[in-house]
C-alpha cells in the first residue's frame, strides 16, 4: 500500500493493517518521520512538501519490490505527506511485516533510506520571510548507497 497525501495518517491503524497480514507474520517494524524543531534560530515555522505525482508512487513501488527481492517481506505500507506541514507533524510512515525480525528491520530501513534519495519529493522550510528549499544531505546519499 502506497499513499501520497496531504492529510495526516494514523500510525496505529497502519500497524493494525500490517498485523492482519496473515499468520506467517512474526515481526513488524515501523518508522515514522516527524517535522523536527531543529532548535536553531532560523525561525522555521513549518515545511512545504512538493512531489512529482505519478513518478513518486512508481519509485516507491520499485523500492518495495526491491526490498521484497532482498528480504522476506509479507506486506509493506508507505505513506508520505505533501503540502504544508507544521512542527511535530508526521511526514512519512514506512511499515514492513515479515516472518523474521532481521528481515523486517532491514527492509523497513532500506525503504526509508532509499526513499530519501530517490523518491521525487522536495522540502521547503517555511519562515516568516517566505522560505528556502532544503538541500540534499551528503549523509543521506551515503546512507542510501550503503545498501548497494
Amino acid at each position, binding site marked *: 500500500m502506497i499513499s501520497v497525501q496531504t492529510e495526516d495518517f494514523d500510525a496505529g491503524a497502519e500497524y493494525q493493517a500490517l498485523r492482519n497480514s496473515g499468520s506467517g507474520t512474526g515481526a513488524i517494524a515501523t518508522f515514522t518521520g516527524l517535522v523536527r524543531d531543529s532548535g536553531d534560530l532560523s525561525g522555521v515555522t513549518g515545511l512545504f512538501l512538493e*512531489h512529482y505525482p*505519478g513518478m513518486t508512487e512508481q519509485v516507491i513501488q520499485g523500492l518495495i519490490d526491491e526490498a521484497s527481492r532482498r528480504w522476506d517481506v509479507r506486506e509493506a505500507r508507505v505513506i508520505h505527506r505533501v503540502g504544508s506541514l507544521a512542527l511535530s507533524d508526521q*511526514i512519512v510512515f514506512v511499515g514492513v511485516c515479515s516472518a523474521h525480525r532481521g528481515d523486517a528491520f532491514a527492509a523497513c530501513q532500506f525503504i526509508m533510506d532509499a526513499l530519501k534519495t530517490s523518491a521525487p519529493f522536495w522540502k521547503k522550510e517555511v519562515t516568516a520571510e517566505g522560505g528556502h528549499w532544503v538541500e540534499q544531505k551528503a549523509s543521506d546519499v551515503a546512507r542510501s548507497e550503503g545498501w548497494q
Partner: protein
Amino acid sequence: MTTPTITIRFFARLREELDTESMSHPLPEGQTVAELLSTLSGRGGAWAQLTGDQPVMVAVNQAMAKPGTRLQAGDEVAFFPPVTGG
C-alpha cells in the same frame, strides 16, 4: 506534418526560479537529454543554471534518466534538484 514535440516539467526550486511548471517544446536536434539542456540553458538568465554547477536531475517518462538518454516525440521530460523527502 506537425513538428514532433516533448513536454518538459520543472519541480521545486527550478520550477520557481524558471517560473515554469510545464511547457511543450520541439523534440531537440540530436534527441538527447544533454542537447535539450544545452538548448534550454541558451535562453540565458535563470535558465543558464541548467548547465551550471548545481546538480540537475532528469526523469524521462517518470523514470530517472541520464544526459545521454535519447528522447522521442511525446516524451515527458522532468528537471528537478536532488530530492529531499522523507
